[in-house]
Protein backbone atom coordinates (compact mmCIF):
# COMPACT_ATOMS: atom_id res chain seq x y z
CA UNK A 1 0.00 0.00 0.00
CA UNK A 2 2.70 2.40 1.01
CA UNK A 3 4.94 1.40 -1.86
CA UNK A 4 2.05 1.82 -4.30
CA UNK A 5 1.42 5.32 -3.12
CA UNK A 6 5.08 6.08 -3.40
CA UNK A 7 5.25 4.76 -6.92
CA UNK A 8 2.41 7.05 -7.88
CA UNK A 9 4.22 10.08 -6.51
CA UNK A 10 7.38 9.30 -8.46
CA UNK A 11 5.33 8.97 -11.61
CA UNK A 12 3.81 12.37 -11.01
CA UNK A 13 7.19 13.91 -10.42
CA UNK A 14 8.37 12.94 -13.91
CA UNK A 15 7.89 15.71 -16.47
CA UNK A 16 4.67 15.19 -18.29
CA UNK A 17 3.22 16.37 -21.55
CA UNK A 18 4.53 18.20 -24.58
CA UNK A 19 6.59 21.25 -23.67
CA UNK A 20 7.93 22.29 -27.06
CA UNK A 21 7.99 25.99 -27.95
CA UNK A 22 4.86 25.59 -29.99
CA UNK A 23 3.02 23.83 -27.18
CA UNK A 24 4.17 26.52 -24.78
CA UNK A 25 2.75 29.15 -27.09
CA UNK A 26 -0.55 27.35 -27.59
CA UNK A 27 -0.98 26.72 -23.90
CA UNK A 28 -0.48 30.34 -22.95
CA UNK A 29 -3.17 32.74 -21.86
CA UNK A 30 -4.63 34.98 -24.59
CA UNK A 31 -2.93 38.09 -23.23
CA UNK A 32 0.38 36.31 -23.17
CA UNK A 33 -0.28 35.08 -26.70
CA UNK A 34 -0.90 38.62 -27.90
CA UNK A 35 2.26 39.78 -26.17
CA UNK A 36 4.23 36.99 -27.78
CA UNK A 37 2.83 37.70 -31.22
CA UNK A 38 3.54 41.40 -30.79
CA UNK A 39 7.10 40.67 -29.76
CA UNK A 40 7.61 38.35 -32.71
CA UNK A 41 6.24 41.05 -35.00
CA UNK A 42 8.55 43.60 -33.39
CA UNK A 43 11.46 41.27 -33.90
CA UNK A 44 10.54 40.79 -37.55
CA UNK A 45 10.22 44.53 -38.07
CA UNK A 46 13.50 45.22 -36.28
CA UNK A 47 15.35 42.76 -38.39
CA UNK A 48 13.77 44.20 -41.51
CA UNK A 49 15.06 47.61 -40.47
CA UNK A 50 18.45 46.20 -39.61
CA UNK A 51 18.79 44.53 -42.99
CA UNK A 52 17.54 47.64 -44.72
CA UNK A 53 19.93 49.91 -42.86
CA UNK A 54 22.83 47.61 -43.45
CA UNK A 55 22.16 47.69 -47.18
CA UNK A 56 21.57 51.45 -47.18
CA UNK A 57 24.69 52.30 -45.23
CA UNK A 58 26.88 49.99 -47.25
CA UNK A 59 25.51 51.49 -50.44
CA UNK A 60 25.91 55.05 -49.17
CA UNK A 61 29.48 54.46 -48.10
CA UNK A 62 30.30 52.92 -51.44
CA UNK A 63 28.69 55.81 -53.32
CA UNK A 64 30.59 58.34 -51.24
CA UNK A 65 33.88 56.60 -51.90
CA UNK A 66 33.20 56.43 -55.59
CA UNK A 67 32.05 60.05 -55.76
CA UNK A 68 35.04 61.31 -53.82
CA UNK A 69 37.45 59.43 -56.03
CA UNK A 70 35.73 60.86 -59.10
CA UNK A 71 35.49 64.36 -57.61
CA UNK A 72 39.15 64.54 -56.66
CA UNK A 73 40.29 62.95 -59.91
CA UNK A 74 40.60 66.39 -61.48
CA UNK A 75 37.60 65.94 -63.71
CA UNK A 76 35.78 69.09 -64.68
CA UNK A 77 33.00 69.92 -62.22
CA UNK A 78 30.80 70.93 -65.12
CA UNK A 79 31.15 67.49 -66.72
CA UNK A 80 30.55 65.80 -63.42
CA UNK A 81 27.44 67.87 -62.88
CA UNK A 82 26.16 67.01 -66.33
CA UNK A 83 26.54 63.31 -65.75
CA UNK A 84 25.01 63.41 -62.30
CA UNK A 85 22.11 65.81 -62.72
CA UNK A 86 20.01 63.38 -64.68
CA UNK A 87 20.21 60.70 -61.97
CA UNK A 88 18.53 60.37 -58.65
CA UNK A 89 21.44 61.22 -56.42
CA UNK A 90 22.09 60.53 -52.79
CA UNK A 91 24.55 61.69 -50.14
CA UNK A 92 27.59 63.49 -51.50
CA UNK A 93 26.42 63.41 -55.08
CA UNK A 94 23.18 65.02 -53.97
CA UNK A 95 25.17 67.66 -52.10
CA UNK A 96 27.29 68.35 -55.10
CA UNK A 97 24.34 68.52 -57.45
CA UNK A 98 22.41 70.84 -55.12
CA UNK A 99 25.35 73.22 -54.77
CA UNK A 100 26.12 73.15 -58.46
CA UNK A 101 22.52 73.77 -59.33
CA UNK A 102 22.44 76.81 -57.12
CA UNK A 103 25.72 77.96 -58.64
CA UNK A 104 24.48 77.55 -62.17
CA UNK A 105 21.17 79.22 -61.46
CA UNK A 106 22.95 82.20 -59.97
CA UNK A 107 25.00 82.56 -63.09
CA UNK A 108 22.08 82.22 -65.46
CA UNK A 109 20.38 85.24 -66.97
CA UNK A 110 21.60 88.81 -67.54
CA UNK A 111 22.45 89.68 -63.95
CA UNK A 112 24.36 87.04 -62.07
CA UNK A 113 23.36 87.10 -58.37
CA UNK A 114 26.78 86.54 -56.98
CA UNK A 115 26.64 88.82 -53.95
CA UNK A 116 25.19 86.31 -51.48
CA UNK A 117 25.82 83.20 -53.57
CA UNK A 118 28.18 81.76 -50.96
CA UNK A 119 25.50 81.88 -48.27
CA UNK A 120 22.89 80.38 -50.54
CA UNK A 121 25.17 77.51 -51.49
CA UNK A 122 25.92 76.82 -47.85
CA UNK A 123 22.26 76.85 -47.00
CA UNK A 124 21.39 74.55 -49.87
CA UNK A 125 24.05 72.13 -48.80
CA UNK A 126 22.88 72.22 -45.19
CA UNK A 127 19.39 71.43 -46.28
CA UNK A 128 20.63 68.58 -48.42
CA UNK A 129 22.72 67.20 -45.57
CA UNK A 130 19.80 67.28 -43.21
CA UNK A 131 17.59 65.59 -45.80
CA UNK A 132 20.20 62.93 -46.38
CA UNK A 133 20.61 62.42 -42.68
CA UNK A 134 16.92 62.03 -42.25
CA UNK A 135 16.98 59.37 -44.93
CA UNK A 136 19.83 57.56 -43.19
CA UNK A 137 18.41 57.80 -39.70
CA UNK A 138 14.89 57.02 -40.73
CA UNK A 139 13.42 54.13 -38.62
CA UNK A 140 16.44 53.95 -36.36
CA UNK A 141 14.13 55.24 -33.64
CA UNK A 142 12.02 52.13 -34.07
CA UNK A 143 15.06 50.08 -33.13
CA UNK A 144 15.63 52.26 -30.09
CA UNK A 145 12.02 51.95 -29.02
CA UNK A 146 11.92 48.19 -29.46
CA UNK A 147 15.22 47.87 -27.70
CA UNK A 148 14.00 49.67 -24.64
CA UNK A 149 10.35 48.60 -24.60
CA UNK A 150 10.47 44.93 -25.66
CA UNK A 151 11.89 43.64 -22.37
CA UNK A 152 9.11 45.39 -20.50
CA UNK A 153 6.49 44.04 -22.83
CA UNK A 154 7.93 40.57 -22.38
CA UNK A 155 7.99 41.09 -18.65
CA UNK A 156 4.38 42.10 -18.76
CA UNK A 157 3.57 38.85 -20.54
CA UNK A 158 5.54 36.93 -17.93
CA UNK A 159 3.83 38.62 -15.04
CA UNK A 160 0.46 38.02 -16.58
CA UNK A 161 1.30 34.39 -17.30
CA UNK A 162 2.54 33.76 -13.79
CA UNK A 163 -0.52 35.48 -12.40
CA UNK A 164 -2.88 33.22 -14.33
CA UNK A 165 -0.69 30.27 -13.49
CA UNK A 166 -1.04 31.01 -9.79
CA UNK A 167 -4.75 31.44 -10.21
CA UNK A 168 -4.81 28.01 -11.83
CA UNK A 169 -2.85 26.59 -8.91
CA UNK A 170 -5.29 28.12 -6.49
CA UNK A 171 -8.20 26.73 -8.46
CA UNK A 172 -6.77 23.23 -8.75
CA UNK A 173 -5.75 23.25 -5.06
CA UNK A 174 -2.61 21.44 -5.97
CA UNK A 175 0.93 22.69 -5.56
CA UNK A 176 2.56 19.87 -7.40
CA UNK A 177 5.45 21.05 -9.53
CA UNK A 178 3.87 19.57 -12.63
CA UNK A 179 0.92 21.89 -12.13
CA UNK A 180 3.07 24.92 -11.46
CA UNK A 181 5.86 24.43 -13.97
CA UNK A 182 4.14 24.64 -17.40
CA UNK A 183 2.42 27.93 -16.64
CA UNK A 184 5.63 29.51 -15.44
CA UNK A 185 7.56 28.13 -18.42
CA UNK A 186 4.93 29.65 -20.72
CA UNK A 187 5.16 32.95 -18.93
CA UNK A 188 8.94 33.03 -19.05
CA UNK A 189 8.80 32.34 -22.74
CA UNK A 190 7.31 35.82 -23.17
CA UNK A 191 10.31 37.42 -21.48
CA UNK A 192 12.60 35.34 -23.64
CA UNK A 193 10.87 36.64 -26.75
CA UNK A 194 11.11 40.18 -25.46
CA UNK A 195 14.84 39.82 -24.98
CA UNK A 196 15.21 38.15 -28.36
CA UNK A 197 13.58 41.18 -29.94
CA UNK A 198 15.34 43.76 -27.80
CA UNK A 199 18.96 42.66 -27.86
CA UNK A 200 19.52 42.89 -31.64
CA UNK A 201 17.52 46.10 -31.73
CA UNK A 202 19.71 47.78 -29.13
CA UNK A 203 22.91 46.59 -30.76
CA UNK A 204 21.74 47.65 -34.21
CA UNK A 205 20.54 51.01 -32.97
CA UNK A 206 23.91 51.80 -31.44
CA UNK A 207 25.77 50.59 -34.48
CA UNK A 208 23.71 52.44 -37.08
CA UNK A 209 23.30 55.67 -35.18
CA UNK A 210 27.07 55.81 -34.77
CA UNK A 211 27.47 55.05 -38.45
CA UNK A 212 24.95 57.73 -39.40
CA UNK A 213 26.88 60.26 -37.33
CA UNK A 214 30.06 59.25 -39.11
CA UNK A 215 28.47 59.60 -42.54
CA UNK A 216 26.99 62.91 -41.55
CA UNK A 217 30.35 64.31 -40.47
CA UNK A 218 31.87 63.01 -43.70
CA UNK A 219 29.20 64.82 -45.71
CA UNK A 220 29.70 67.97 -43.72
CA UNK A 221 33.41 67.77 -44.35
CA UNK A 222 32.78 67.45 -48.06
CA UNK A 223 30.29 70.30 -47.94
CA UNK A 224 32.85 72.52 -46.26
CA UNK A 225 35.50 71.61 -48.79
CA UNK A 226 33.18 72.10 -51.72
CA UNK A 227 31.98 75.35 -50.25
CA UNK A 228 35.59 76.49 -50.00
CA UNK A 229 36.17 75.61 -53.62
CA UNK A 230 33.06 77.45 -54.76
CA UNK A 231 33.88 80.38 -52.54
CA UNK A 232 37.26 80.67 -54.19
CA UNK A 233 35.60 80.55 -57.59
CA UNK A 234 33.12 83.24 -56.61
CA UNK A 235 35.84 85.49 -55.26
CA UNK A 236 37.89 84.98 -58.41
CA UNK A 237 34.88 85.92 -60.56
CA UNK A 238 33.88 88.98 -58.55
CA UNK A 239 37.44 90.26 -58.60
CA UNK A 240 37.89 89.43 -62.25
Amino acid at each position, binding site marked *: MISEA*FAQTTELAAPAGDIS*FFALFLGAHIVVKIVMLGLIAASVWC*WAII*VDKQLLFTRTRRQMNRFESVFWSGQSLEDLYQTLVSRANTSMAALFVAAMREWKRSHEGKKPAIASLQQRIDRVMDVTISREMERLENRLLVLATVGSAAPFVGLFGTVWGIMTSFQAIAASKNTNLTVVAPGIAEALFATALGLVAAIPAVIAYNKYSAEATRLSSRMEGFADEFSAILSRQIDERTQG
Partner: protein
Amino acid sequence: MRTGLVVSLIGHAVVLFWGLIAFPSAQPFSVEPVDALPVDLVPIEEVTKTRVGDKTASKDNPSAPKPADKPVEAPKKASDPGKKPTESAKAAPAKSEPKKVAEAPPPEPPAEPDPAPEPAKEPEPAPEPQTEAEPAPAQEEAPKEAEKAPEPPKPVNVVPQSKPTPPRRTQTAALDPAKTQNAREQEEEKKFDPNEISNLLNKVKPEGGERTVSEEPAGLGATRATQQQGLSASQLDLLVSKIKERWNYVPDAFPPDLVVVVQFELTRDGHLAGTPRIMNSNPYPRFRQIAEAAVRAIIAVDRSEGFSFLPRDRYDGNGGWNTVLANLKPQ
Protein backbone atom coordinates in the same frame (compact mmCIF):
# COMPACT_ATOMS: atom_id res chain seq x y z
CA MET B 1 12.58 48.40 -47.19
CA ARG B 2 10.88 45.49 -48.89
CA THR B 3 14.17 43.63 -49.16
CA GLY B 4 14.75 44.02 -45.46
CA LEU B 5 11.26 42.86 -44.59
CA VAL B 6 11.48 39.82 -46.81
CA VAL B 7 14.91 38.90 -45.49
CA SER B 8 13.70 39.38 -41.91
CA LEU B 9 10.59 37.26 -42.42
CA ILE B 10 12.56 34.50 -44.06
CA GLY B 11 15.14 34.66 -41.28
CA HIS B 12 12.52 34.41 -38.56
CA ALA B 13 10.77 31.57 -40.31
CA VAL B 14 14.07 29.73 -40.59
CA VAL B 15 14.89 30.32 -36.93
CA LEU B 16 11.44 29.18 -35.79
CA PHE B 17 11.63 26.10 -37.98
CA TRP B 18 15.09 25.32 -36.71
CA GLY B 19 13.81 25.83 -33.18
CA LEU B 20 11.05 23.34 -33.77
CA ILE B 21 13.57 20.81 -34.99
CA ALA B 22 16.36 21.50 -32.55
CA PHE B 23 14.18 21.93 -29.46
CA PRO B 24 11.17 19.75 -30.19
CA SER B 25 10.56 19.42 -26.50
CA ALA B 26 12.41 19.89 -23.31
CA GLN B 27 14.69 17.06 -22.36
CA PRO B 28 13.22 15.43 -19.30
CA PHE B 29 15.57 15.22 -16.38
CA SER B 30 16.67 11.67 -15.91
CA VAL B 31 14.78 10.74 -12.81
CA GLU B 32 16.15 7.66 -11.20
CA PRO B 33 13.31 5.35 -10.35
CA VAL B 34 13.13 5.40 -6.63
CA ASP B 35 12.56 2.10 -4.97
CA ALA B 36 9.59 1.86 -2.73
CA LEU B 37 10.76 2.94 0.65
CA PRO B 38 9.70 0.57 3.33
CA VAL B 39 8.26 2.44 6.23
CA ASP B 40 8.00 0.94 9.66
CA LEU B 41 5.69 2.41 12.19
CA VAL B 42 7.74 2.51 15.33
CA PRO B 43 5.79 2.99 18.50
CA ILE B 44 7.07 5.82 20.61
CA GLU B 45 6.87 3.50 23.53
CA GLU B 46 10.32 2.17 22.77
CA VAL B 47 11.72 5.64 23.23
CA THR B 48 9.73 6.68 26.22
CA LYS B 49 10.05 3.37 27.99
CA THR B 50 13.71 2.61 27.64
CA ARG B 51 15.26 0.64 30.36
CA VAL B 52 18.69 1.03 31.76
CA GLY B 53 21.39 -0.76 29.86
CA ASP B 54 24.97 -1.58 30.46
CA LYS B 55 27.78 0.21 28.71
CA THR B 56 30.09 -2.72 29.01
CA ALA B 57 27.65 -5.10 27.42
CA SER B 58 28.41 -6.61 24.06
CA LYS B 59 26.92 -5.03 21.02
CA ASP B 60 25.40 -8.26 19.83
CA ASN B 61 22.38 -7.83 21.98
CA PRO B 62 21.98 -4.11 22.12
CA SER B 63 18.36 -3.87 22.99
CA ALA B 64 18.26 -6.23 25.87
CA PRO B 65 17.74 -4.39 29.08
CA LYS B 66 19.87 -4.45 32.10
CA PRO B 67 18.33 -6.54 34.75
CA ALA B 68 16.22 -4.83 37.30
CA ASP B 69 17.94 -3.45 40.31
CA LYS B 70 15.69 -4.83 42.92
CA PRO B 71 15.79 -8.52 43.61
CA VAL B 72 12.55 -10.26 43.30
CA GLU B 73 11.67 -13.27 45.29
CA ALA B 74 11.38 -16.25 43.09
CA PRO B 75 9.23 -19.08 44.18
CA LYS B 76 11.30 -21.94 45.39
CA LYS B 77 10.67 -25.20 43.81
CA ALA B 78 10.33 -28.07 46.17
CA SER B 79 11.52 -30.53 43.58
CA ASP B 80 14.87 -28.86 43.11
CA PRO B 81 15.57 -26.64 46.00
CA GLY B 82 19.20 -26.14 45.16
CA LYS B 83 18.77 -24.82 41.69
CA LYS B 84 18.39 -21.23 40.93
CA PRO B 85 15.36 -21.00 38.78
CA THR B 86 16.97 -18.47 36.55
CA GLU B 87 20.01 -20.40 35.68
CA SER B 88 18.03 -22.45 33.33
CA ALA B 89 16.85 -19.38 31.54
CA LYS B 90 20.38 -18.39 30.85
CA ALA B 91 20.91 -21.14 28.35
CA ALA B 92 19.24 -19.28 25.55
CA PRO B 93 21.90 -16.60 24.98
CA ALA B 94 24.62 -19.08 25.59
CA LYS B 95 23.22 -21.24 22.88
CA SER B 96 23.06 -18.42 20.42
CA GLU B 97 26.68 -17.57 20.92
CA PRO B 98 28.56 -20.63 22.01
CA LYS B 99 31.85 -19.09 21.05
CA LYS B 100 31.51 -16.49 23.70
CA VAL B 101 30.81 -19.13 26.19
CA ALA B 102 33.94 -20.93 25.27
CA GLU B 103 35.93 -17.79 25.68
CA ALA B 104 34.65 -17.24 29.12
CA PRO B 105 37.30 -17.37 31.79
CA PRO B 106 37.72 -20.54 33.75
CA PRO B 107 35.74 -20.73 36.91
CA GLU B 108 37.18 -18.77 39.71
CA PRO B 109 38.78 -20.27 42.73
CA PRO B 110 36.34 -21.37 45.35
CA ALA B 111 37.10 -18.79 47.99
CA GLU B 112 36.75 -15.81 45.70
CA PRO B 113 33.49 -13.96 46.05
CA ASP B 114 31.33 -12.78 43.21
CA PRO B 115 32.95 -9.76 41.56
CA ALA B 116 29.66 -8.02 41.30
CA PRO B 117 29.27 -5.05 43.60
CA GLU B 118 25.62 -5.83 44.05
CA PRO B 119 23.65 -6.56 47.13
CA ALA B 120 23.62 -10.10 45.91
CA LYS B 121 25.66 -11.78 48.51
CA GLU B 122 26.03 -15.25 47.29
CA PRO B 123 29.71 -15.98 46.84
CA GLU B 124 30.70 -17.63 43.66
CA PRO B 125 31.19 -21.21 44.52
CA ALA B 126 33.83 -23.45 43.18
CA PRO B 127 33.22 -25.39 40.05
CA GLU B 128 31.87 -28.75 40.61
CA PRO B 129 34.55 -31.19 39.75
CA GLN B 130 32.16 -34.04 39.42
CA THR B 131 30.28 -32.63 36.51
CA GLU B 132 33.43 -31.84 34.62
CA ALA B 133 34.51 -35.36 34.88
CA GLU B 134 31.23 -36.76 33.74
CA PRO B 135 29.65 -34.52 31.18
CA ALA B 136 27.12 -36.96 29.88
CA PRO B 137 24.86 -37.24 32.88
CA ALA B 138 24.71 -33.51 33.18
CA GLN B 139 23.33 -33.24 29.76
CA GLU B 140 20.84 -35.88 30.49
CA GLU B 141 19.78 -33.94 33.45
CA ALA B 142 19.06 -30.86 31.36
CA PRO B 143 15.92 -31.91 29.55
CA LYS B 144 14.53 -33.26 32.74
CA GLU B 145 14.86 -29.96 34.40
CA ALA B 146 13.33 -28.22 31.51
CA GLU B 147 10.04 -29.80 32.38
CA LYS B 148 9.48 -27.27 35.05
CA ALA B 149 12.20 -24.67 34.61
CA PRO B 150 13.01 -23.86 31.03
CA GLU B 151 16.43 -24.95 29.99
CA PRO B 152 19.51 -26.90 30.88
CA PRO B 153 21.69 -25.33 33.51
CA LYS B 154 24.51 -23.08 32.65
CA PRO B 155 27.13 -21.67 34.93
CA VAL B 156 26.45 -18.23 36.16
CA ASN B 157 30.01 -17.08 35.75
CA VAL B 158 29.98 -17.52 32.02
CA VAL B 159 28.37 -14.19 31.47
CA PRO B 160 30.20 -11.89 33.91
CA GLN B 161 32.82 -11.29 31.27
CA SER B 162 30.42 -8.95 29.62
CA LYS B 163 28.10 -8.29 32.48
CA PRO B 164 29.48 -7.65 35.88
CA THR B 165 26.27 -7.83 37.81
CA PRO B 166 24.50 -11.07 38.24
CA PRO B 167 21.35 -10.61 36.26
CA ARG B 168 18.02 -10.77 37.88
CA ARG B 169 14.80 -10.23 36.24
CA THR B 170 11.26 -10.06 37.27
CA GLN B 171 9.78 -11.70 34.24
CA THR B 172 11.43 -15.01 34.71
CA ALA B 173 8.46 -16.34 36.49
CA ALA B 174 6.34 -15.54 33.51
CA LEU B 175 8.14 -17.82 31.11
CA ASP B 176 5.49 -19.79 29.40
CA PRO B 177 5.70 -23.52 29.13
CA ALA B 178 5.29 -23.56 25.37
CA LYS B 179 8.45 -21.57 24.93
CA THR B 180 10.41 -23.81 27.19
CA GLN B 181 9.16 -26.83 25.40
CA ASN B 182 10.39 -25.42 22.18
CA ALA B 183 13.71 -24.54 23.67
CA ARG B 184 14.10 -28.01 24.97
CA GLU B 185 13.52 -29.48 21.56
CA GLN B 186 16.16 -27.27 20.14
CA GLU B 187 18.50 -28.31 22.82
CA GLU B 188 17.95 -31.95 22.01
CA GLU B 189 18.70 -31.34 18.39
CA LYS B 190 22.06 -29.97 19.24
CA LYS B 191 25.13 -31.94 18.42
CA PHE B 192 26.98 -33.56 21.17
CA ASP B 193 30.16 -31.66 21.89
CA PRO B 194 32.01 -32.43 25.07
CA ASN B 195 33.78 -29.08 25.14
CA GLU B 196 30.60 -27.21 24.90
CA ILE B 197 28.94 -29.42 27.37
CA SER B 198 31.65 -28.74 29.90
CA ASN B 199 31.02 -25.07 29.44
CA LEU B 200 27.37 -25.56 29.87
CA LEU B 201 27.78 -27.55 32.98
CA ASN B 202 26.58 -26.24 36.19
CA LYS B 203 29.67 -25.43 38.12
CA VAL B 204 27.80 -23.84 40.89
CA LYS B 205 26.88 -25.73 43.87
CA PRO B 206 23.15 -25.97 44.11
CA GLU B 207 21.83 -23.80 46.81
CA GLY B 208 18.76 -21.94 47.76
CA GLY B 209 18.04 -19.55 44.99
CA GLU B 210 16.43 -16.32 45.96
CA ARG B 211 16.82 -14.20 42.97
CA THR B 212 15.66 -14.34 39.49
CA VAL B 213 18.11 -13.71 36.76
CA SER B 214 17.46 -12.08 33.47
CA GLU B 215 17.13 -14.52 30.67
CA GLU B 216 18.87 -11.99 28.42
CA PRO B 217 22.29 -10.52 29.02
CA ALA B 218 22.46 -6.84 29.64
CA GLY B 219 22.49 -4.82 26.48
CA LEU B 220 23.48 -1.34 25.56
CA GLY B 221 20.62 0.85 26.57
CA ALA B 222 19.74 4.06 28.21
CA THR B 223 21.78 5.13 31.19
CA ARG B 224 18.64 5.95 33.06
CA ALA B 225 15.86 3.61 33.83
CA THR B 226 12.30 4.69 33.44
CA GLN B 227 9.48 3.01 35.12
CA GLN B 228 8.46 -0.13 33.42
CA GLN B 229 4.81 -0.11 34.10
CA GLY B 230 2.39 2.58 33.25
CA LEU B 231 1.22 4.20 30.09
CA SER B 232 3.60 5.16 27.35
CA ALA B 233 3.77 8.71 26.12
CA SER B 234 1.62 7.97 23.10
CA GLN B 235 -1.03 6.34 25.21
CA LEU B 236 -1.00 9.25 27.62
CA ASP B 237 -1.31 11.61 24.68
CA LEU B 238 -4.28 9.66 23.43
CA LEU B 239 -5.91 9.88 26.82
CA VAL B 240 -5.27 13.60 27.10
CA SER B 241 -6.48 14.26 23.57
CA LYS B 242 -9.72 12.39 24.26
CA ILE B 243 -10.30 14.56 27.29
CA LYS B 244 -9.42 17.74 25.44
CA GLU B 245 -11.89 16.89 22.69
CA ARG B 246 -14.66 17.29 25.16
CA TRP B 247 -13.18 20.11 27.15
CA ASN B 248 -15.30 23.17 26.50
CA TYR B 249 -14.20 26.55 27.75
CA VAL B 250 -14.36 30.07 26.48
CA PRO B 251 -11.09 30.82 24.74
CA ASP B 252 -9.00 33.53 26.24
CA ALA B 253 -5.43 34.68 26.46
CA PHE B 254 -4.54 32.22 29.15
CA PRO B 255 -1.42 32.74 31.22
CA PRO B 256 1.32 30.43 29.98
CA ASP B 257 1.59 28.58 33.25
CA LEU B 258 -2.09 27.73 33.44
CA VAL B 259 -2.36 23.99 33.89
CA VAL B 260 -5.23 22.04 35.32
CA VAL B 261 -4.09 18.96 37.17
CA VAL B 262 -6.89 16.46 37.57
CA GLN B 263 -6.59 13.15 39.32
CA PHE B 264 -9.11 10.41 38.80
CA GLU B 265 -9.36 6.73 39.50
CA LEU B 266 -10.44 4.21 36.95
CA THR B 267 -11.83 0.79 37.29
CA ARG B 268 -10.32 -2.15 35.51
CA ASP B 269 -13.02 -2.11 32.85
CA GLY B 270 -12.20 1.49 31.96
CA HIS B 271 -14.73 3.54 33.85
CA LEU B 272 -14.47 6.31 36.34
CA ALA B 273 -14.35 5.32 39.94
CA GLY B 274 -15.48 8.30 41.93
CA THR B 275 -15.25 11.90 40.86
CA PRO B 276 -12.15 13.47 39.32
CA ARG B 277 -10.40 15.82 41.69
CA ILE B 278 -8.75 19.08 40.81
CA MET B 279 -5.32 18.93 42.34
CA ASN B 280 -3.96 22.42 41.85
CA SER B 281 -5.04 26.02 41.79
CA ASN B 282 -4.05 29.11 39.94
CA PRO B 283 -4.55 32.83 40.53
CA TYR B 284 -6.12 33.10 37.10
CA PRO B 285 -9.67 34.32 37.78
CA ARG B 286 -11.41 31.78 35.58
CA PHE B 287 -9.30 28.85 36.70
CA ARG B 288 -12.12 27.27 38.68
CA GLN B 289 -14.46 27.45 35.73
CA ILE B 290 -11.93 25.89 33.34
CA ALA B 291 -10.94 23.20 35.82
CA GLU B 292 -14.54 22.22 36.35
CA ALA B 293 -14.99 22.07 32.60
CA ALA B 294 -12.04 19.67 32.52
CA VAL B 295 -13.71 17.51 35.15
CA ARG B 296 -16.88 17.52 33.08
CA ALA B 297 -14.82 16.56 30.04
CA ILE B 298 -13.43 13.53 31.86
CA ILE B 299 -16.89 12.52 32.91
CA ALA B 300 -18.08 12.98 29.35
CA VAL B 301 -15.34 10.70 28.06
CA ASP B 302 -16.36 8.14 30.65
CA ARG B 303 -19.99 8.34 29.59
CA SER B 304 -19.39 8.18 25.86
CA GLU B 305 -16.68 5.63 25.25
CA GLY B 306 -15.01 5.02 28.55
CA PHE B 307 -11.32 4.55 29.06
CA SER B 308 -11.17 1.01 27.82
CA PHE B 309 -8.94 2.08 24.94
CA LEU B 310 -6.08 2.00 27.43
CA PRO B 311 -4.14 -1.25 27.37
CA ARG B 312 -5.40 -3.66 29.96
CA ASP B 313 -1.99 -4.92 30.97
CA ARG B 314 -0.96 -1.47 32.07
CA TYR B 315 -3.70 -1.11 34.61
CA ASP B 316 -1.97 -2.39 37.66
CA GLY B 317 0.97 -1.10 39.52
CA ASN B 318 2.35 2.14 40.61
CA GLY B 319 2.37 3.83 37.22
CA GLY B 320 -0.62 2.00 35.84
CA TRP B 321 -3.79 3.73 34.87
CA ASN B 322 -5.75 2.72 37.91
CA THR B 323 -5.00 6.27 38.99
CA VAL B 324 -4.46 8.91 36.35
CA LEU B 325 -2.94 12.28 37.03
CA ALA B 326 -3.65 14.37 33.97
CA ASN B 327 -1.98 17.71 33.31
CA LEU B 328 -4.37 19.57 31.05
CA LYS B 329 -3.27 22.79 29.43
CA PRO B 330 -5.88 24.96 27.74
CA GLN B 331 -4.86 26.22 24.32
